[in-house]
């Protein structure tokens, strides 16, 4: 019943350098539980070298806060991947 | 213990009083002595052996500011003496008999209680007793002793006194006069004690003991704490509806204090 009312949606498509990096980003983000699952839902997937973040929420405020937090985490992941990946 | 403390206490008591140190607690050093402070001749037990007395001495603590130190020593010695003399008169409560006190010098003279447990298990306080029973932790004597512990605390609280530092080291077991296996339970060490009608103080008292049991006798603490509370409740339940209501209040606050402890956010 919850998902029916989560009608504010947004999809982010974030390009990474490689498929492996996109997959790492997905695995890093997945474990953390959502504080109010009845108000906010998120699913992570990959398409090629892109991380796809699909978000659904009860209103635009909750959506904004939630997405902002996810983007903060993604920034850390991107920076870590850029700076600390193993040298080939 | 440092020689300095022994020297100070010997000087204070004079060499006429023989002393033997038996333990050093956090704030007091405990000695035994065969000397009585004001009886002309020493007392003897039924077998003709001279009776022993406890001298509890609170040495000045150099780590704390002299003003704090003087105040605490005087306050605690005096309040311990007052509490002991009041509690001694309440039927059913077992505390050591007070013989003499000198609050400014931090000295108390008390009746000696307890004995050495068999098999080198140490002095008969509750802690050593429970450790001595570790191979048969739930036997009948342990159970009945812990219920009696609960009853002592129940009586204390029911009469609006709080101990302030309940641990298994501050509960002493002495043989009943009869030849049975039963122990008589004594509460000692009332330095942090107070007269208090506040439910909060009683709740904290129970919480402090529960935690002491959990940390010192971890493996069996659930059952042990349950028996203590059983004994505690017995006292209140003997006093009809009024007692039951009071009991509910204390136990409710006890669990509130416990929740506060667990729920408090711990930030590194």
């Amino acid at each position, binding site marked *: 019943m919850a998902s029916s009312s989560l009608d504010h949606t947004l999809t982010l498509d974030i390009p990474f350098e490689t498929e492996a990096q996109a997959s790492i980003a997905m695995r890093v983000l997945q474990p953390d539980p959502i504080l109010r699952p009845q108000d906010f839902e998120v699913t992570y997937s990959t398409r090629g070298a892109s991380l796809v973040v699909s978000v659904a929420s009860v209103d635009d405020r909750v959506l904004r806060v939630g997405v902002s937090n996810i983007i903060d985490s993604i920034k*850390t992941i991107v920076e870590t991947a850029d700076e600390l990946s193993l040298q080939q | 213990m440092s020689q300095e403390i022994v020297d100070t206490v010997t000087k204070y008591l004079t060499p006429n009083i023989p002393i033997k140190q038996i333990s050093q607690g956090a704030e007091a050093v405990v000695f035994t002595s065969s000397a009585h402070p004001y009886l002309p001749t020493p007392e003897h037990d039924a077998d003709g052996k001279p009776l022993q007395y406890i001298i509890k001495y609170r040495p000045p603590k150099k780590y704390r500011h002299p003003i704090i130190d003087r105040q605490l020593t005087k306050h605690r010695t005096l309040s311990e003496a007052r509490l002991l003399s009041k509690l001694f008169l309440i039927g059913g409560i077992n505390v050591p008999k007070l013989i003499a006190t000198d609050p400014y010098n931090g000295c108390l003279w008390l009746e000696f209680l307890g004995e050495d447990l068999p098999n080198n298990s140490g002095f008969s306080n509750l802690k050593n007793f429970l450790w001595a029973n570790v191979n048969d932790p739930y036997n009948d004597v342990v159970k009945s002793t812990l219920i009696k512990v609960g009853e002592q605390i129940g009586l204390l609280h029911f009469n609006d006194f709080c101990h302030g530092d309940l641990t298994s080291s501050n509960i002493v077991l002495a043989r009943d006069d009869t030849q049975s296996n039963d122990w008589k339970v004594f509460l000692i060490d009332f330095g942090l004690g107070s007269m208090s009608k506040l439910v909060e103080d009683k709740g904290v008292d129970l919480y402090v003991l529960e935690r002491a049991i959990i940390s010192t006798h971890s493996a069996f603490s659930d059952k042990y704490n349950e028996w203590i509370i059983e004994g505690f409740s017995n006292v209140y339940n003997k006093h009809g509806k009024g007692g039951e209501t009071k009991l509910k209040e204390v136990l409710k606050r006890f669990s509130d204090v416990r929740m506060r402890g667990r729920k408090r956010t711990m930030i590194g």
Partner: protein
Amino acid sequence: MVNLNTVPPRNNRDYYIAIGLEGSANKLGVGVIKCSRSAHMASGDNSHNCDVEILSNIRNTYVTPPGEGFLPRDTARHHRNWCVRIIKQALEEAEIKNPHLDIDVICFTRGPGMGAPLHSVAIAARTCSLLWDVPLVGVNHCVGHIEMGREITKAENPVVLYVSGGNTQVIAYSENRYRIFGETLDVAIGNCLDRFARTLKIPNAPSPGYNIEQLAKNCKNKDSLIELSYTVKGMDLSMSGILAYIDTLAKDLFRGNKKNRLLFDKETGEPKVTVEDLCYSLQENLFAMLVEITERAMAHVNATQVLIVGGVGSNTRLQEMMGQMCKDRANGKVHATDERFCIDNGVMIAQAGLLQYRMGDYVKDLSETVVTQKFRTDEVYVSWRE
């Protein structure tokens, strides 16, 4: 019997290398340690004697302006901004060229602490773990302090006084857990000092507690004290009442409230006490309470050693008082570390995490890396001790 050598080091090395990431409060720390896999670690209880070599220990503190505390959101932003740079710096200083081959385990603080800052560092830890294919260990912050303190001071089985911004606990080891014998019933000692520093509007750098310590040292009238309540309850203590009271005194002093006879002379209206006097009295009173509950725990468990850990543990007056207490006890000895290890750092997380890793206890699924604000010291199963 404890065998700390069950998990062999990577790449056929005869030593372990661990990196630790800490960010539970306003300090962000990354440290790298090296630890030989010596034979004596294969049996017995040697976790306090690991021959640890510290390859790097970098810290960056989020400092707020005077009068302000650090908020979770802003602290998390600080950690995010600095995290990767600090990790890089720590690796360079430790001369780690290839983390995949050179690092055995990545240790990060799983709790307790502030949620958002913890999370920001955990994200970086997970990413590194996947990028480098190196296992992760989630560490209890308090256990980190204890293990680092034991290793540095070689204190085998001390009573631990853990004093920091969020914690005030008296801890002793028994049957595979660090058990809490006493703790604050309300606010933590560090929090108490931080909040008083905010009232005094003194700088938060290097730390509010350090600045209070300096003010207290400069107190001109150490013979007298401002009377504060002394609230020890067995092995527990309470500090919120004392804080509230001294806060009002400070505010009255600043406001020039002449009606307060404790602060101002009845005849001349001149102030009788200074900010330094307040700091001195507060420290003397609170620290006496801390030393007393520590001594009570020592008496209760028959211990002779004390180890002071946590940020407030670097206060020299507290160390001095603890030392004096120990001197009056048979074989009493106090152990303390300096600010490099007392104050939150990455090395301590690496130390505790590596012990855990060597016992085979590491993250098998990333769902185990979710951080937790509440994580009591006695929840951790201490498999590396007997």
